[in-house]
């Protein structure tokens, strides 16, 4: 992916935030999980992932900590902040509304 458009960027943010809703997770695992859960339809390019992660961290939605990964290597773990959780809920609702509306338009028009 070259420089992502705004819409795609927002959606990517939403996916990233959702993956870390349950527990802290590092960047590689985020990409893996999104790929696995979407059954290989959504493949996140690392070139888009890390800038997105840094941006989300700058904006205060997520926070990072260095920890030990499964194979005992140092990895940076991201988790949601309190504001991030609220933001995620808001964005999920928005996405629901948006996709339902698009669906209605596509069916009726």
């Amino acid at each position, binding site marked *: 992916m070259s420089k992502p458009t705004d819409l795609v960027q927002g959606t990517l943010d939403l996916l990233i935030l959702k993956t870390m809703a349950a527990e802290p997770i590092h*960047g590689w695992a985020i990409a893996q999980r999104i790929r696995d859960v979407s059954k290989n339809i959504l493949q996140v390019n*690392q070139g888009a992932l*890390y800038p997105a992660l840094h941006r989300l961290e700058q904006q205060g939605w997520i926070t990072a900590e260095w920890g030990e990964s499964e194979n005992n290597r140092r990895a940076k773990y991201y988790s949601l902040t309190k504001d991030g959780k609220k933001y995620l809920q808001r964005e999920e609702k928005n996405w629901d509304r948006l996709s339902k509306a698009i669906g209605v338009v596509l069916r009726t028009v």
Partner: protein
Amino acid sequence: MRWVRKISLRFRSLLHKDAVERDLDEELCFHIERLSAENIAAGMTPAEARRAARIEFGGTESFKEDCREARKVDHIQEFSRDIRFGFRMLRKNPGFTAVAVLTLALGIGACTAIFSAVNPILFEPLPYPHADRILMIWDRSDGGVRGSITFGTYRELVKRAANFGSIAVMKSWQPTSSGAGMPQRLNGQNVSSTYFRVLGVSPVLGRDFQASDDIPNGPKVAILSDGLWKRQFGSDPTVIGRQITLTEDASFLRGNDDTYLVIGVMPSGFEDVLAPTAEIWSPLQYDWAVSTAESREWGHHLHMVGRLRSNSTLNQGRQELDLIANTQVPAYPRPPWASLKLGFIVDSLQDDVTRGVKPALLSILGAVMLVLLIACVNVTNLLLARGSQRRGEFAVRTALGAERPRLIRQLLTESLLLAALGGVLGIAVAVIAVRALVALAPPGLPRASAIGLDGWVLAFTIGLTALIGVLAGLIPAVHASRNSLHSGLQEGSRRTAGGHQWTRGILVVAEVALALILLVGAGLLLRSLARLFSVAPGFDTSNLLTMQVQESGHGYIKDSVRLRFFAGALDAVGRVPGVTAVAFTSILPLTSDREEYGAQFEKDKPGSGQDVFLYGVTPGYFELMGIPIHRGRFLDAHDTTGAPVAVVINASFAKRMFATGDPIGQRLKLGPQKDWDTIVGVVGDVRQESLAADVPDAVYINTTQWEWGDTVLSLVVRGHADVALLSPAIKQAIWSVDKDQPIVRVSTMSELLAASAAERHFVFVMFEAFGIVALTLAAIGIYGVLSGSVTERLREIGVRMALGATPTRILALILRQGMTLTAIGAVLGLMGAALASQALITLLFGITPLDPVTYFGVIALMVIVSAIACLVPAWRAARVDPAITLRAE
């Protein structure tokens, strides 16, 4: 909470840049490893797997750049980069940097200094609570002149003016503190008990005056200033309740006791704007009940201030006072000379105090702003010239991808840097300039003690510096970034002068115009001063020494003793070698001395009369001063106690009162006199307050014949050259008669003459200084533009010469270019000066703001100076060798 996290993250990115980059590297490493591991598990070889992982990642560097951009600290980093680059550029061109920084430092420093002087006087509110509610109230006399108030009027207003919370009156008081050492005359005020309440400041030690202190024959109490307390009492806190010995004018006696009880000390920051040098205050203790015409309670000699209630406005106060003036009530009868028939003049205290100096200060402020503008224009020109030299650099930058706003931002940063350096140096200039200002300032400058560099002034400097940086840098920045790549990268064969020259030419025209305005102002003031000093004072001012002698102390209660002292002093001084003549006068010409009494002429109907200046003199005064006699005779030693009272009046007064007929032999009565005096002579007019003020109506009388004798007289001594050297001997002579009498205000008449025009002179000096700076800057500006033009046109000049132009023709060509700029600037400047000089009207004397001599003189000066400035580059152009320049392609 989110913003806290955001800010701390930004700080970390900024300060621990390396650590953050390392983190990112490590994170990417981890990701690539896991990706490689996955690829290996899918069947690739390790090398292939790593390669595939890298490819999928894309170029790591640009990716890292994306991450960095996401961290959004670029702006700050860019800014710091710009600043470092700017510093390097300035260091590489020390000549340019030095000139620009110095120019700006001069402009900013001068502006700051003037602002620090003008701010406390004109802009800052007075240092009293709710100072806008304090009003100054004057009696309006003929011609709209502000006159002093009588105590009777004060009494009436206290009871009748409801809009005022408190009203106070004051007069100046100069007691002598005797005791150990030399007698010291203090400056102070006699005030009503409400004085400090009106101002709103209370003593920090002890207590304020109360109504019970201000009764006739009441206890003598005094409040000291902080300065006096420190100086005389060493800040001793037990000073309250102590007694001090003060002696004072014998005419306002309070019995033989002259010890005062100290009841309070004012705070150290206290400024008495009505009497800046006052150090001691004591109640007036005038008598409410007295109402005779002769007593001081009905004399015009008090100044009045009042504080409005919080719910009253200035207009309400004014209207009420007018109403009171027009409605006389039986409870408060008024004598005819205090009838208030013309009403009051009411001004806010701040306006009143600054009234005299406002036009002068505002014009100086305007002038210094002009200088700053010129300095700014000069620096802009310098930057433009540098910009055209750096065309190559900007072209390369643009080719590498810099956008125009980025270039402009960098250039603005450079000019802000320049301005900041100029500002820092300017503060140093300002410190020196402020000291010079305070030293040069005319003595009557209000709030002079508040002049200095404080927080407001520094804030002003910083704001000004930033503004200058942006202003001076904007045009060059826009210009430099506008250049097309093509012409920039081609270093050679620049055939035309280009758009730069246009802008620089316009700037030079502006400089010339502004400099012209300043010079016209200076010229007008110079001519005013010349006119002023050519006014005849009415007496011979050369070799005249004056000093003020006061006799005080209870030995001098009786008139006879007082007169004996003065006579003895005259005698003793007359015997000092080098003294050719000596006399006393109660009012010294060319000072602010005033002694006015009502004069009633026998020929006019009773009740009519006017105020005159009453000069109490000793025999020989007129001859000493060189005042000519027009009719009749001078006063002499025969006009003494017991003889018929003789007076002399001045010529213009005589002409007005006796248009036809002879004033000699006519009779008049002065003030509280019961019998008529006879006019025995008419003498020439003498200027009193200053050379510019009108000649007052004057009546001269011998001190021995005036019962309400003065205790302060001015000694005038005429000697041979260098009278000032006689001063110690003369003082000794006076002290040989009585060693306890203070002698003050020693100065020669020439010094007094100069001091009387001090204010105008001060403004002139300012304008002169600014004018010279402006002229120099404008000359430098012309020189710079022409120089740059010649450099750019070298090839063209070479071609011209090769085609047959003589060096003279080239010289004329360049000269014409320069003089055209000057001419346009001069025309604009003339129009501007005609407008701007209107603002100087109150300071001019004897000439109009459109005085042709001044304008022609200034134009001539400008033409000469700019011709010289043009000559150097023109000379350089004429000496061009076409062979060299044409071959240099």
